[in-house]
């Protein structure tokens, strides 16, 4: 199912309607189905790392932990970023979600 809003009891996985590329220093999400809409999105390095982790079903907590483990960032701050990223992917229709919702 498509995710509605981001929920930390839910597992998320990226959809296959975008392809990630790293080229000339840009982390890109290339849309496979976009028409006149913008077919390219830039990711930050953090976004790219989260995108890679989203190849497998994963939770908000697991994604947050991965950021805390790699960066000097508080859990609350990392969770906010992950939540924002998942919201953005949802808007791009790039995310599947499964499990209970609050």
């Amino acid at each position, binding site marked *: 199912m498509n995710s509605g809003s981001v929920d930390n009891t839910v597992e998320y996985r990226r959809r296959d309607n975008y392809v990630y590329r790293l080229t*000339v220093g840009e982390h890109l999400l290339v849309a496979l189905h976009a028409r006149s809409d913008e077919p390219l999105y830039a990711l930050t390095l953090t976004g790219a790392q989260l995108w890679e982790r989203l190849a497998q079903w994963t939770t908000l907590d697991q994604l947050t932990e991965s950021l805390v483990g790699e960066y000097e960032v508080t859990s609350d701050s990392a969770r906010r970023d992950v939540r924002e990223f998942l919201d953005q992917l949802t808007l791009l229709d790039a995310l599947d979600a499964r499990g209970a919702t609050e």
Partner: protein
Amino acid sequence: MTTIPRISAAVMRDRMVERARRERVPLQADIEIIATCNFKCVHCYIAPCAEREDVMSLAQANIVFDKLQAAGTQMVLLTGGEVFTHKQFKEIYLSAKRHGFEVYINTNAYLIGERWADFLAEWPPKGLSISLYGMSPESYERLTGIPKSYERVMHAIDLLLERGLLFDLKCPAMTITAEELPAMQAFARSKGIRFRTDYSIIPQEKGDTGPLQLQLAPHEVMSLERRIDPELKSFRVYAAPRIDGSTTDSVYKCGAGKTSLHINVHGGVSTCSTSRKVIGNLFEQPFDEVWAALGGKVSMKYPAGHPCASCQFSRICAGCPATVEQLTGLPTGYVQMYCKMTHQRAHELGYHPSGVPRTVTEGIPAHIVTPTRSAARMLPVLA
């Protein structure tokens, strides 16, 4: 921490192009997946020389895609021949998309019916470029040699428009299209489609110079440009930043071999689709080896005394190293016809007092290579 920064696509692209230029990354690749065509166009330099086996298979295309992906390529143009006649076109196209490339397609659109149009709507290319060859069934068929080609292409254009696909139209300016080019441009404008033309006709890949008899003479080019754009507005905009009084002895002033390359059906790599001089092979060699060889080629300088090295209009030249190479055998050759076209344009724009190049009065230095005898015979002789 923002994970998807809100930057415009244009800004991102500029950044990518700038870095690609700086680091010589092959951002764009033209891939000829089939050399044969369902049209028999009189000006074509590829298909008339092609054999049935001149086709890149899906497996070969994937070799190329993998190497380009690793090298940093972002934009891929699938071209031919006619790509929709390729039996594995759909698979090759989808593979290119799944490699994460922004995919462009060159086509004559003859085979685009409802099913292909629906497919393209579901899996849209970044851009589609359709060759247009006239504005009536008669003129279309005279050029393409194929009955109903006009009706089929017009229908395809409507199907693509109905589905909101992005595409442009293009037509080579030559003796048999010149009369209808303004009407083609008006047609494109009426549909809200970009139209472009090009004035250079080159010999066939295997050397037949027949297409050159269709080349417009410099004064005909100027007259046509005036009909298409009476104030020469677009050329004025193009020329202004490229004419600053400076000169350069660099032969390649475009992105060929610096941020782009061309790959033919057999994996052969050249600077661009116009140049047919293969410098390496992507089926057989590592990418870096071929890319290095291409880099050597495009860093070449003009020999001493070459007229183009001291020409302040070389950045707006009607010719380019690839067209010059096709006519003379060398990118460092000299084609006076291009020189006359360029100087006449410069004159029309107020940059040159007479529009007559120096070589007309002073002659061409003897050590500079000029068009081969067979090419020279076919090129227009009138200024």
